[in-house]
């Protein structure tokens, strides 16, 4: 072990650059994994017992409220609710005439039914009562509350980017509740009364963006979805019904196959890292042919020489992994660094990705050390000492 460490320190610049290169590659890998996770988190949070009903043509087209009671009373549906994407911009005046702007997801929903369909969202009873009683009341996630420094009783003003008020003033809301979650769930959303939106907006009155329905039996998903779409077939507002996971995936696919792109970049980065590391280790191995021959002459076995050379490559890779993957884990998962908090409400490197980074580092270490180590294993001391 001492020999491995001392050999690494023999050329500190070269070792340092190789470790740094590995660390940068693994940092990039972990960042890409965090991005993929951020995009997929909605899919992962999906429930198998929920259906989403949207306009047959596009999510951007609206559906009439009148569909809701029909869906609610269909066989196989326990409860259903409707929602509309609000798309407002949070603005807060700052000293010096500047403005702080934040964007986060806001939904106008029929609160009692909508929240009942999402048992993951937890709201204290008394806050729920206050929310029900206030037409301008809203509930926000605890993470969003922390980000905006809001507490129950505070006000939130949003500039409507889709829905404008007749007088053009911002939409004002009273924070009546702050939700927490039972599991990994987006804690940066805001829900408010659909009635407040519908009674105030200037167009599309009585229209909603989608319906979400809870099934009595998740196994009947396909059958119930087909019946809903059949029920509204040939009407002015035909529907497309799918389970929540498929819906969220469709939402993701609007941005193209980002996962494939990210994974392609990650693979190229890792292959490059492997080539650089392998080249460095082969150079280091070749430089020490004589020393390996001397070790054998002194009585060290072929296996010892093999392990010394593999050990050096592994040490470089592990150091790179600690710096790269460990550093990224610290920055993102512990210190909660987020490149765009309003776009990625949940941004973290999954544990499995950290494990993958470590395994990639170990594999890179073994593969890059393998060529010099096998050469060391096969080295004939007599020939090597004669040749040098």
């Amino acid at each position: 072990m001492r020999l491995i460490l001392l050999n690494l320190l023999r050329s500190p610049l070269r070792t340092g650059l190789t470790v740094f290169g590995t660390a940068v590659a693994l940092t990039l890998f972990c960042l890409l994994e965090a991005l993929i996770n951020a995009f997929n988190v909605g899919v992962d949070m999906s429930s198998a017992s929920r259906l989403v009903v949207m306009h047959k043509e596009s999510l951007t087209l609206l559906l009439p409220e009148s569909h809701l009671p029909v869906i609610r009373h269909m066989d196989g549906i326990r409860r259903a609710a409707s929602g509309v994407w609000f798309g407002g911009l949070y603005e807060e005046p700052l000293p010096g005439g500047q403005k702080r702007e934040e964007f986060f997801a806001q939904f106008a929903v029929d609160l009692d039914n909508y929240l009942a369909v999402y048992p993951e969202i937890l709201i204290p009873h008394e806050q729920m009562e206050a929310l029900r009683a206030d037409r301008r009341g809203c509930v926000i996630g605890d993470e969003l509350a922390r980000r905006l420094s809001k507490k129950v009783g505070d006000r939130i003003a949003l500039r409507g980017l889709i829905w404008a008020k007749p007088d053009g003033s911002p939409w004002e809301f009273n924070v009546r509740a702050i939700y927490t979650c039972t599991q990994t769930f987006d804690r940066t959303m805001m829900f408010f009364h659909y009635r407040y939106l519908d009674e105030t907006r200037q167009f599309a009155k009585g229209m909603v963006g989608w319906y979400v329905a809870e099934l009595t039996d998740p196994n009947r998903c396909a059958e119930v979805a087909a019946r809903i779409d059949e029920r509204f077939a040939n009407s002015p507002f035909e529907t497309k019904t799918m389970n929540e996971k498929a819906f969220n995936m469709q939402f993701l696919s609007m941005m193209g196959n980002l996962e494939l792109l990210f994974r392609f970049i990650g693979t190229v980065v890792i292959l490059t890292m492997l080539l650089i590391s392998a080249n460095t280790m082969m150079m280091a191995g070749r430089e020490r042919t004589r020393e390996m021959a001397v070790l054998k002459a002194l009585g060290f076995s072929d296996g010892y020489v093999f392990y010394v050379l593999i050990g050096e490559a592994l040490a470089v890779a592990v150091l790179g992994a600690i710096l790269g993957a460990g550093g990224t884990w610290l920055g993102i998962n512990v210190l909660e660094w987020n490149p765009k908090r309003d776009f990625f409400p949940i941004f973290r490197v999954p544990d499995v990705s950290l494990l993958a980074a470590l395994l990639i580092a170990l594999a890179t270490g073994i593969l890059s050390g393998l060529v010099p180590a096998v050469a060391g294993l096969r080295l004939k001391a007599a020939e090597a000492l004669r040749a040098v």
Partner: protein
Amino acid sequence: MPAIVKLEDVTKIYTKGENEILTLDHISLEIEEGDFVALMGPSGSGKTTLLNLLGGLDTPTSGRVTVCGQDLSDLTSRELARWRADHVGFVFQSFNLLPVLTALQNVELPLTLQALDAGERRAHAVAALRVVGLEDRMDHRPGELSGGQEQRVAIARALVTDPRLVMADEPTGDLDAHSAHEVLGLVEQLNEELGKTIIIVTHDPHAAQFARRELHLEKGVLSRERTR
């Protein structure tokens, strides 16, 4: 004195491409325990090859090599390595110390193969450095030592495991005359005071004068022998 080294009809042929190079040609030889032998001869005569066979670093094409009572052809590569660690000390022309280790750590290195704890290893290494007169330089790395000092550290490394046989390949080849004389004096001391059997390969007639027995090789054949 019993023979510590016995070669019986040993031949060594190297193959390079399609060519076969006869390096040692049916050599038979005995060296007694405690002897000091110089192997001499022109370049390419087979001196180093013979030394490598005696040290178990190479195997003969035919014939039998017995050293310290062990027929080396019976041993696997791993067993040969272990046998070398226990019975043979090597000294090379270019010293071949590991540059990342201090003199003490270089001398300790062969002891890591022995069943000794760290304290014992250090004590043995310091004792070996004392024998070669470099106790005060033990924390220096090879790059901080003169050539003569490096070779003395290499000698300390060769004798630290208390081997019966010390083999040196051109031990003074890279040294100035003064350092060479010191190193040869030290090797002679190992032979006379510690009873080590010494075999050195050398071109240098001055170096050969320290030995009690000179063996001359020419074209892989023992051509003549001189005993003092």
